[in-house]
């Protein structure tokens, strides 16, 4: 019975960040990089993998030493661990995936400052044993990846008519019917798509809508 219970617990920890507790859609964390690297599927996938690896390892490491992190320097310790992992991953990308690393430019380095990573180590890994912490981190990484992949595929499809570099929609230039929307390759379209995605999810899962107390204080000209 406990076996079953722990297994559903693990499953829940892993899957709830995908939609129900999605770090990007619900908590609006880590959107800077989510918007910047989604011009194509390839960069979105690489960034997702890099962030998931960094997040999982960082959560594991923080969780291992969680009993011995002095309260006064806990944020510094966590950031140092995350930053070191990010540099290592960046070096590995530069060595073995030079092309993708150039496409991602500064954004791999900026994983360090991704609120999502520090959010998970601070809120979860610091209070839980390594295995659940890493499962939670992995689930959150997958949740982030899911959003990146959805936005990245839409942008690449509508902006270039391609998916992962393969032509999907026949372009008007080459005699097809599809005219690429070059807006999709620019930063604002990522905001539009993310906004629409958040709207769609919150319309379906009504419990994700933020309660009233988060609304701004009423103003005369706004309230009708």
């Amino acid at each position, binding site marked *: 019975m406990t076996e079953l219970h722990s297994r559903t617990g693990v499953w829940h920890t892993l899957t709830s960040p995908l939609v129900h507790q999605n770090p990007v859609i619900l908590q609006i964390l880590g959107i800077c990089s989510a918007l910047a690297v989604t011009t194509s599927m390839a960069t979105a996938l690489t960034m997702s993998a890099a962030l998931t690896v960094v997040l999982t390892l960082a959560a594991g490491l923080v969780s291992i030493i969680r009993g011995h*992190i002095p*309260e006064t*320097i806990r944020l510094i310790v966590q950031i140092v*661990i995350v930053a*070191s992992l990010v540099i290592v991953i960046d070096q*590995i990308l530069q060595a073995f995936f030079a092309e993708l690393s150039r496409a991602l430019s500064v954004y791999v380095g900026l994983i360090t400052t991704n609120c999502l990573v520090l959010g998970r180590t601070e809120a979860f890994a610091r209070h839980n044993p390594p295995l659940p912490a890493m499962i939670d981190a992995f689930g959150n990484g997958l949740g982030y990846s899911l959003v990146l992949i959805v936005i990245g595929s839409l942008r690449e499809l509508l902006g270039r008519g391609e998916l992962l570099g393969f032509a999907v929609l026949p372009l008007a230039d080459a005699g097809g019917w599809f005219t690429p929307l070059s807006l999709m390759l*620019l930063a604002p379209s990522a905001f539009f798509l993310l906004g629409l995605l958040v709207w769609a999810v919150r319309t379906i899962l009504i419990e994700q809508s933020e309660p009233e107390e988060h609304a701004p204080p009423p103003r005369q000209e706004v309230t009708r």
Partner: protein
Amino acid sequence: MEERSLNPWRRLLALPNESRFKTVVMAFLVSAICGALVSGATVLLRPIQAANRAAEEAARIAALVRGIPGMASLLETTGGALSTVVVDLNRGRAAQTVTPATLDAALADPANWLVLDPAQDLAGLGQRPDFVQIFLLRDEDARLSLVLLPVSGQGYGGQIDAILALGSDLNTVAGLAVTSQSETPGLGGRIEETAWQEGFAGTQMRDPSGTVRFRVAQGAAGGPYEVDGITGATRTGRGVTGMMRFWLGPDGYGPLLEAMARGEF
């Protein structure tokens, strides 16, 4: 033995987390381990990264040459190879003692660098090497048909490295390839795009009196000495302008190009 060596460690872990000693030791340990991790990864992976960069630069030079009209056929008739030579910028001719193999060693010596004063330093480099490796392509009669000159200069986000290809008149640009840059992605970073680099082909660098007139325009190019500017990347454009003016001027390849024009190559 084992027990005794473990003891201080156990005592440390048993200390309350708020103790000042434990805070300092934890800070030190975390930094030391993370430092070792980062240095290890950097040192282990550097040879692979250097090889990547070298391969990429070679590929860009090859792509640059291939992209210039008529060059592919010329390469075939001349045996398909660029020749390379190290030039001495102070004397404006081929270096006597330095070869491509010994170039790195020569440039490790500060005596082989020229410190630039602010008035000279149009590219914002601070100093300039005396020896540079350039690439030449000759036609059947051994006349120069293409000269590839590495150039570099300060952009907005860091140094921009590029290779400029000049045609046989040593003034008309045949092409440009940016080999490394750290400009803002989406703005100055667009100097990597071939669409922008293609604008260089056919541009004139100097006017008939020999003054470097080239510049990156603010907006669309006007006249034979300009290429299109990139919106939102004024300082990158200014950096590219300064870079070209410096390297084609008297402190850069100017003397060398004059020597080439006199037929000394």
